[in-house]
């Protein structure tokens, strides 16, 4: 529907991204988020629209296309509409959808500021029943009265004389909004780790696993202020832990690399478990690299706090509702059982999930670029970050 409204070049870049996502030529949630943003920026800059609905629809159609490009099925349900039967599928790179949602949110915000109306001001009556549906609790106070007068004159939707005038007027603002999102993405590691020294204390022993850029930045940042020890689990079969250990010890942090199997045994000496996340869900649970569940469970047994470092773009307005297994992404058995084991290949079924689903009960806190939050308040963050109507693209 929106595809005809944006030009051929944009169309191609959308398709190009879709194929790359599909072929796993683009992996990593931040990288995908960045690429998505670039595509969106291109689309918006080329798009022709004469009112807000058209613009939103264009962006949504792009989002839909990108999300569908990854047919990785999960029974995840969009948070507020989970009672509905749906054919919407989820994707391994949740950050694509999240980015689109975020852009939509920002665009709407800019639009409202420009138009001068506060769309969210309608439901003024507070009731506990409407609490969940109440979006943007913080924005209510800000901005609204200020922009009212000056913008209204310049922007006219659906101007019959000059259909492009709306777009012309709004585009600079939109580009700025997208640029904001981009900037946020680019500084996400710094922002996540700026409070690192408040979380890690001297002589603590930290356990982590996998190769998460966020965690890496976080730990390195803490090392500027504190002297502490990190134990890294190897994290088979990707062995990202080895890379992490190398990087950390290169940064001068005292680092131990242990096999995954010894995680439980070591846990009694660990002060804190710091994990990365692949996607954080509305209920406060998350997907994280496989092995994280062992770590979290072991930590639970030893009452060791589990802290998750993640950028806000990983917040996903979905729930892992039905069963956990199907939500996961299964990779190539090659890394578990070598292809050269010809005799076994025939007889053994190899399962190589990329991610573990970690229940919110196992997590003590999230450290994001937008402050620290307990799992129970993730839903609030989601509300602030995305618009409800975008939960299903």
């Amino acid at each position, binding site marked *: 529907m929106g595809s005809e409204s944006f030009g*051929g*070049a944009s*169309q*191609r*870049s*959308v*398709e*190009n*991204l*879709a*194929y790359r996502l*599909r*072929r*796993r*030529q683009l992996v990593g949630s931040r990288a995908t988020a960045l*690429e998505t943003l*670039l*595509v969106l*920026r*291109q689309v918006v*800059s080329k798009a022709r629209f004469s009112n807000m609905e058209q613009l939103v629809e264009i962006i949504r159609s792009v989002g839909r296309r990108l999300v569908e490009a*990854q*047919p*990785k*099925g999960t029974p995840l349900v969009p948070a507020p509409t989970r009672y509905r039967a749906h054919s919407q*599928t989820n994707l391994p790179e949740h950050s694509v959808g999240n980015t689109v949602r975020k852009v939509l949110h920002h665009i709407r915000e800019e639009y409202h500021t420009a138009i001068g109306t506060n769309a969210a001001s309608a439901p003024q009556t507070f009731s506990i029943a409407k609490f969940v549906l109440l979006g943007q609790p913080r924005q209510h106070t800000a901005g609204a009265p200020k922009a009212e007068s000056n913008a209204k004159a310049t922007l006219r939707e659906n101007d019959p004389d000059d259909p492009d005038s709306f777009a012309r007027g709004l585009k600079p603002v939109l580009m700025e909004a997208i640029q904001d999102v981009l900037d946020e993405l680019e500084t996400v590691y710094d922002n996540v780790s700026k409070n690192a020294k408040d979380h890690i204390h001297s002589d603590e022993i930290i356990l982590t696993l996998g190769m998460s850029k966020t965690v890496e930045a976080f730990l390195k940042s803490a090392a500027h202020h504190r002297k502490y020890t990190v134990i890294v689990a190897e994290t088979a079969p990707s062995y990202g832990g080895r890379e992490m250990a190398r990087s950390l010890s290169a940064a001068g942090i005292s680092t131990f690399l242990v096999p995954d199997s010894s995680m439980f045994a070591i846990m009694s000496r660990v002060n804190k478990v710091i994990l990365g996340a692949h996607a954080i869900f509305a209920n406060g649970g998350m997907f994280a690299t496989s092995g994280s569940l062992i770590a979290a469970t072991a930590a639970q047994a030893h009452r060791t706090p589990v802290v998750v470092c993640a950028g806000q773009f990983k917040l996903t307005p979905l729930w892992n509702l039905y069963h956990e*297994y*199907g939500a996961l992404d*299964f*990779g*190539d*058995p*090659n890394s578990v059982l070598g*292809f*050269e*084991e*010809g*005799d076994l*290949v*025939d007889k053994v*079924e*190899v399962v*190589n999930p990329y991610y573990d689903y970690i229940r919110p009960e196992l997590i003590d806190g999230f450290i994001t670029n937008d402050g620290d939050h307990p799992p129970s308040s993730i839903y609030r963050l989601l509300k602030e970050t995305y618009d409800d109507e975008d939960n299903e693209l």
Partner: protein
Amino acid sequence: MAPKSSNAGKEKLIDDEEEVLQAVILADSFNKRFRPLTARKPRCLLPICNAPLLDWTFESLALAGVQEIFVICRSHAELVKTAIKESKWSKPGSGIKIVPILTAKETFSPGDAMRDIYTRGLVTSDFVLVMGDLVSNIRIDEVVRVHKERRKTNKDAIMTMVVKESGARHRTKARGDSSVFILDPETSECLYYEPVSAFPQTTFAHIPREILADHPEVEIRNDLIDCSIDVPSLFQDNFDYLDIRRDFVHGVLTSDLLMKNIHCYVAKDGYAARVKDTKSYESVSKDILSRWTFPLVPDDNHPGGHVYDHERGNKYIAKDNTVVLARTCKIGNNTLIGSSTNISANVQVLASVIGQNCNIGAGAIIRNSYVFDGAVIGSDCVVERSIIGANVNVKDGSEIQKGCLLADGVVVGPSAKLKPFLRLSKKPEEKDELVSDEDEDDDSDLEDLVSLQVSLAKDLGTDSNALVWPTAPEEDADDDEIAKFKNERFMRLGDDASDLDYSDDGSESSLSESESDDESDSDADFTVPSESLPLGLPDGSPMVESEFQIEVKQSLERAFAEGHSVDNAAVELKTLRMASNVPLTRVREAVVGAIVDKIKIVDSGVVEQRKEIAAVIARWGQLIDRIGGVDPVETVSALQAHCASSQRLPLFGQILAALYQDDIVEEDDIRKWHRLPVSRGEGLKNKGDVENFKKCWTVGSHMIKQFDEQESSEEEDEDEEDEKGDENEEDKSKGANQAKKVQKVMEESEEESEESDGEPNTSPAKSVSVASAISPNQEATSEEESEEDEDIDEIEEVAAAPTKPMVEDVRVEEPIIYPQAIATPQITAPSSTNASQQNNTKQEPQEESEDEEEEDEDEDEDEEESDDGMPKKPINSVAGKPDATPQMAAVPQPLQASISPETATILSSATLVADESDDESEENSGDEVSSPGKEGTQITAAVAPVTPLAPTSKQETSEEESSEEESDGSDGASASTNALFPMGTHNMLPTEIALAPPFAKPESSGEESEGDESEEYESGELSEAPAVKAAALVQPLVKDVGKAAGSSEEGEGEETDEEYTDAESISDGKRDTKIATAAGSGLNVGVVKDV
């Protein structure tokens, strides 16, 4: 296709592409293994996991970053074209440009197709060449990058093949269609390729010896799956091959003319396999379902664009909620069910793929089967390991046993009982309008089949419209066809071929070595005699060869008559050889033959005859080495063979001497030839030939004996030589003198050999001595270079000819050069003993006695000659041999260089000893060696390639006392290493390499003492290899020093015995190293030497 945007900066991140990566897909399999499934559509459109194979291939390439694909379609080209047009690939944004290319029906082979690509000029740079049935997730762009990188430095690297490591046995590795790769682990250059067939079972692979000689480390592997992903550079001139692997790769690698390299990319990660037969269809399906091809899996990136839900146990159910699964049905692991399919109650679907819109009746059981779209399986049917084509109707109660192929639209049943491996297609009468675009040959095939039906069509059920295809070749099929059929059984779905497996191992294996299965990969239609590429194969077809011989003869006659230059003649021969595709050996034989025939038999006297020979050899001899490869041993053999069968037999010795003189053969080569059992006439049928061979061989033995004697005496001359490095002017005259001597000896030898036909063992020895006389002469002392320059004019060229490098460094005591002739014991002197003790390896008993006899005879004549002015060669001329022979010389040279310091010292001390004794006993010997170290290295350098030098017993006997103390000393020095290496012949021995059975550890089956070479390869310790080699070479010398010391008292009985056994052990005489490839064996390689 790159989005051209004004906003280039912004787009840069999205699509930054430098160069378009191109791929060519051969969408024709050029064989018919899938028939009858492929009767009406090309193989590349067969569905696998519910998407056409071609789409999988496209997706594989897209995954690898390919942006432009050319699809070469031949059969059913229109179908392929339409399929491409309708696929998602032609939509904008797919990021790939796909161009179907229809080629003519005359395109019968990949070679033709490549020619087509080339003539169209579509491909602009290095590209990816794949078959239209590839499923892969390998990053080919990486391969291309590596390839391009390599091309920058090595223009001859024309192709990179992608191979995938698999185990010894693997479901995806077809047993009937695997291959042996020999790789250089450092450069990953593919040194040799040989296809392996399962029937007749290939148990040996021939590996050219040069490979082992040239590469310190090789990997011999048959655990590689050939993915048929190639990254060729544009090969512009070589399109005449049937199969890229068997013909093109094998041809390029075995050709010494092309001088091109092919490299392998051993993919450690990733998956790549071809669906080349029904068996691999099954295994690739299984691999896809168990996610080896990730991200190319049904639930993630299904090429057909279907969406599947992945459930525990790798079950994939179409996600559009159209699949109806009865509550009581059982879906097993590794199963894929397409959309709108209806699975009724109590159905079991296990490890199978069910297409779209299928209907499975109640109670049916489908195991390991592949059911295409729209098929209907009736209730209570049983389908096992079969492929059911699209819209097939299997009526109720039918049973389809393993390996059946049911083509599209077949109806069987009710209650049909299909035997295993039955192939059914629809009867032609019921064919609809499709007939018109059908291949003509298909039609004729079908018609043939109709006639066969009566006998075969039973148990198909009353409603059947099926046509049964024959399961086995007809009775009158020739052996090749049967073998081919049996081999293809290994590629057949569900056929474990257990009845064939190993059943006739021993008897068949030897056959299979050379036959292999040239044709198993090509169509009956396209079958072309395998002779098209026998480069390097031991046996080409006799007819082609005889024609070739004639051609060569004519060509040379023209050259002789018109006085072409050697170079021109060589070019002509090369072209000829390329054209008729014969092994180098044949060319050599032909050239040697022609040259020998060119020599006129002169009756007027020995001298005239000699002149004639010298003239011819000087004019044309170099041609032998210019024909594309240098193998002097073979040259001698060819000469022998030719002489033995022609009337020029008496000339053998002279010609050989002339060849030696012109540096076409070296002393070493003569020795090697001499050791070959064939040279003694072994294994020859014709009795007369055997006789003649023996005669020639005896001539050779005498020549060698002379070499030995020179060797020993040369040492003494060394320091004298040092003094007179500058006496260049005299060289010529010396050379002349020496050549004259040669002639004299020759004369004798001719007389001898003519007289003594009956007893070749004793008499012809002298004729050999001629050749050996040459170089030592040139190094004689100054005292001897006085007079007798009469023959200068005649022989000047001889003197100018470069001398043998290995001879020059060794000091030679002149008189000893002609042991038979000169026999001056007082001069032969102590030094010779030491020298011989160092160098001797073998001495044949009869030679000893001969020596003594001949000494007496020759003494008188030779004594005058002994005073001849002997030119001395400057030491620098060691490098004087321009045409170093790559094949044989390649081995010793690196070894020489790496001889360890200790051995050098041992040798040098021995030389020193020799020097001292020289001084004592001879007034004419030169100064004592000033620097032992330098001397030592000289000696080693010289001696190493000459390893098997035989001492002359008479020297020993005469010098026993004087040498005793010294030899004791060296004995002690070498005692520790003594026992290790009995023979210095390690690079001569045919090496047999056995591929051990799977899971066996590599074992060297050779004894330790013989294992010098094998150990090297096994140990894989590169750094040690040269040292080991060096040791291997030097050990014999060292040992012999010890031995000689011992035997100076005991005589040399044992040693001569040893020599004989050794010579016989080489008697297999085969050039090629053998590799036993137990089918399915891993990369475990043991090197076996038969001694």
